[in-house]
């Protein structure tokens, strides 16, 4: 039985989708050397470059955020699979500069190993690069070792903060400090209602019983948190936002950004209903909703579910989040 997906040869998924992205956004991005997505109008060499790496199949992430005021490049792997270390090294060489490079790695085994290997080689070649690892998923527990937490869609606002700071011409140390602070002050929880189909092999990933949902499910349907019977939107939002408030330690008067990231089949209708419920709880506690968005940023094929991301904002973050950006799937 063929998959209910609009695809051609499953081996060519990544190449074809990147080609589509390049055609559709030819004024914003271009593909260099097969799987490195760069800005169509690169910023000048005297500014810090911001690069990321990761698997495909999560569109618009990650390449949809390459553009003015955000990423300089994304190094793309295959579906749900990190790019190999040589590709990452190639991108680092491409952006080698005095000002330095920031490499954002999401904490997943494959990404970490590729980045790690490429960074060792880059160091030998004298490339100036600092890695920022995101691991803001709190499903393993609020006090879990950062090494044991996953990086979910929180990378997206982080790209925005780093990209805006780099665009302004800030030095690498200052940008890294800003970025690491943003990174520490954010937390994400994911929830899933259904699994998805792996688009290369057609097999199901993460099957959930008909009447159950799971809070804490990862980027590819990897299990993690607790299964429960299906809850209402309000109850789901409440459980999630309360844990996120605790994890980020936000209090009355603090500024926050709230993001809902739909992972695939969950409609924007539902996401908005959840947004409403979560933001009401923030308001009840006097927490100030300064910025936010609702929609698909980092998807997991046709999985039904969403990620809720809460970021505590300092004044400099607020400003950087509002700065201009013109990536295919993020404009400000």
């Amino acid at each position, binding site marked *: 039985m063929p998959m209910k997906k609009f695809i051609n040869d499953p081996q060519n998924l990544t190449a074809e989708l990147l080609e589509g992205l390049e055609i559709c956004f030819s004024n914003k991005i271009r593909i260099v050397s097969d799987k490195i997505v760069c800005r169509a109008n690169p910023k000048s060499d005297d500014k810090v470059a911001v690069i990321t790496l990761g698997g495909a199949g999560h569109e618009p992430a990650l390449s949809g955020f390459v553009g003015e005021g955000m990423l300089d490049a994304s190094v793309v792997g295959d579906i749900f*699979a990190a790019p190999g270390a040589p590709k990452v090294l190639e991108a680092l060489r491409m952006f080698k500069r005095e000002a330095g490079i920031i490499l954002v790695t999401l904490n997943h085994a494959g990404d970490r190993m590729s980045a790690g290997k490429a960074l060792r080689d880059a160091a030998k070649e004298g490339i100036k690069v600092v890695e920022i690892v995101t691991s803001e998923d709190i499903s393993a527990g609020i006090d879990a070792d950062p090494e044991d937490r996953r990086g979910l869609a929180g990378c997206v606002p982080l790209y925005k903060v780093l990209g805006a700071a780099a665009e302004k011409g800030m030095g690498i140390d200052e940008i890294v400090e800003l970025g690491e602070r943003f990174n520490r002050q954010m937390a994400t929880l994911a929830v899933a209602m259904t699994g998805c189909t792996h688009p290369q092999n057609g097999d199901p990933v993460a099957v959930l019983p008909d009447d159950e949902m799971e809070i*804490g499910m990862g980027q590819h349907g990897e299990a993690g948190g607790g299964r429960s019977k299906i809850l209402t939107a309000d109850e789901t939002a409440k459980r999630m936002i309360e844990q996120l408030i605790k994890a980020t330690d936000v209090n009355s008067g603090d500024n926050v950004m709230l993001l809902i990231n739909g992972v695939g089949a969950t409609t924007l209708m539902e996401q908005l209903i959840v947004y409403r419920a979560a933001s009401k709880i923030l308001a009840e506690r006097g927490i100030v909703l300064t910025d936010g968005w609702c929609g698909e940023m980092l998807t997991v094929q046709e999985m039904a579910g969403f990620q809720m991301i809460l970021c505590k904002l300092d004044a400099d973050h607020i400003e950087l989040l509002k700065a201009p950006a013109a990536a295919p799937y993020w404009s400000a």
Partner: protein
Amino acid sequence: MLTIGKFKKMVARAGREVGAREKEFSRLDAEAGGDGDHGTAIVAAFRAMQTVEGADFKSYLKSLSEALQSSACGSTSTLYGSWLEGMGEAVGEAVMELDAEGVAAMFSGGLEEIGFVTRAREGHKTLMDALIPATRVLSEAVKNADAGIAFSAAAEAAEAGAMATCAMQAKYGRAKNLGERSIGPRDAGAASMACIFNAFAHEAKLN
């Protein structure tokens, strides 16, 4: 003990046997809470290595590692790539036939290099649970036995190590968030590693 020609046949056979079990490896990945694509990844890795050439061990292994790392993706790319890279680094220049010591050194070098890219060791429910005992047994066995027997012993150790992962809770890789629920199925990477050693053994025994 082991010629480059024989070794190439072993690699080719491993590619065929892994290819035949693609679905199983992906399913194991999914069952243990991973993203269900290990079969896809390992098959892509062997596909990338299919056309690789090289007259001696060092250049052949170096090319294998490069082909794999530049074509294959995911954890598999760096893990198997580093393994082959380490194997290549451990053999001398232009060597076309290895003695017992050479075989042991080659596989130990592979294990050492893969140890640099991951902190996982035995008991963490990863491919290391197959690779570590297989390397240990192989290094011992080559001293007193021919390649066929030595690789068979290594394959048995790999298989036992892979089976032992059923009872383990994942510590590394995408399955780790599953916690206790990862107990039950074999680790996908350990299963594919055991499959590779098994293919090596079958091929080594021929002629």
